């Protein structure tokens, strides 16, 4: 059977979807709840990495598993790779920072 979706929104309302395999840029399919929705990826995404499902301006809380996993520290566009370069934990103590 061939794949019917390429990324998974673990909770249907999540701001990010996770790549189920290494994906090239271009249109991919996101499984969210019962729906399968298209999403244009802005660049390749490795397995297990996250992609924004909607625009996430700097300071926006980012939800995965239906819970907040951190906040955007840059403006993130829908389809963009979301990782340590553009989001950060709200829980971790950031001792190095002033």
């Amino acid at each position, binding site marked *: *059977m*061939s*794949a*019917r*979706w*390429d990324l*998974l929104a*673990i909770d249907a309302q999540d701001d990010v979807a*996770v*790549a*189920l*395999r290494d994906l090239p840029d271009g249109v991919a*399919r996101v*499984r969210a709840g019962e729906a399968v929705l298209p999403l244009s990826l802005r660049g390749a995404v*490795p*397995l*297990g*990495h*996250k992609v924004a499902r909607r625009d996430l301006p700097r300071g926006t809380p980012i939800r*995965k*598993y239906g*819970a*907040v*996993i*951190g906040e955007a520290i840059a403006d993130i566009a829908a389809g963009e790779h*979301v*990782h*340590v370069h553009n*989001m*950060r*934990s*709200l*829980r*971790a*103590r950031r*001792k190095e920072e002033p």
Partner: protein
Amino acid sequence: MTHEFLGYLRPDGSAGTRNRLLVISILGLTGGPARRIARQVPGALLIEMPYGRGQFGEDRAMMRRMLAGLGRNPNAGGVMLVGADRLRLDAVAEAIAPSGKPLEAIALDDVHEDALALSDRGLRLAAAMARDISRARRVPLPASLLRLGIECGHSDATSGLGANPLAGLVADRVVDAGGVAVIGETMEWLGAEHVLAARAATPEVGRAIVEAVAQREAWAAASGEDLTGNNPGQENIRGGLSSIEEKSLGAIAKGGSRPVQGVVPHAAPLPGPGLWVMQGPAFSPPSITGFVAAGCNMLIFTTGPGNSYCDALAPTVKVTVNPKTAQRLTQQIDFDGSGLMLGTREPEEAADALFAQLLDHAGGTRCWGEVLDEGGYAFARLGADF
């Protein structure tokens, strides 16, 4: 629909998924006779506590909970305790006795410290008990008698994404059937404790969850470790994890979505139906032994690249959703959920299938770890000895 499995109904109303004769050396001095006895009774399972004296406080209390809890576990049809002094031995025996199962307790004291005489006495008693417990028969039992411990070990990007949420859907099914589910590994709640706390059955339970994490964090800080400083680590980050919250949410996903009934100390009995969280170590062998001492009769163990460790007393169903792992480790992985990663399988259908397989293993079908005798146990410690 009523879910059932074929199990051994124990005198205390609990359900065995196996019917083992347990030979437990309750302290480090009596491993020799206990080994001799267990070796000579095919099917007997040996458990050796390597400690037993010079412990104090919560460390000692935890050791006693582990010994008594393993003896009470419904997968043990009969128990032989081997000890040195009567006093300690009887204390453990008294804690196991309410389970109503056949129980013998033999001490070096009784044979004037003659370990060979103890071995001989023990062998005769154990042989009789092995014959006695073989009379037990499996009968159809409701899934409400399942007590499921859920562990993850050797994770990768597929664990938090697929395997743990899958295990969580099965935990929900067990809880909805009236059974018990438990997750542990307190350090893996770090960053997600507020999510677990929000699902707590009462505000007190919510506070206990947050406190359990704070306590571990304080222990680590006292040893000079900062648990949030370099967490997620480099390997996690390469796998796509961006924050401690995200990592921990992927870990606690294996507990499912039902209300958390309470926080239980390591190896303490699970007080009733529903989802529980155990305050315990993150490493799988002691974590799982805590579940089994708490009464778990089945385990689900999720893994990414693979992990062969299983419990000796509770059947351990190995689950992966990593397609390469499932292909490679055909004599380790009991349930292949890789369709979830391939985008070909419905999560709810996969969870129904895993739940059905869990009931089948509970009914006697061996897991790979049992076939291959991978089973182990490990006693967690807290603090130094006198």
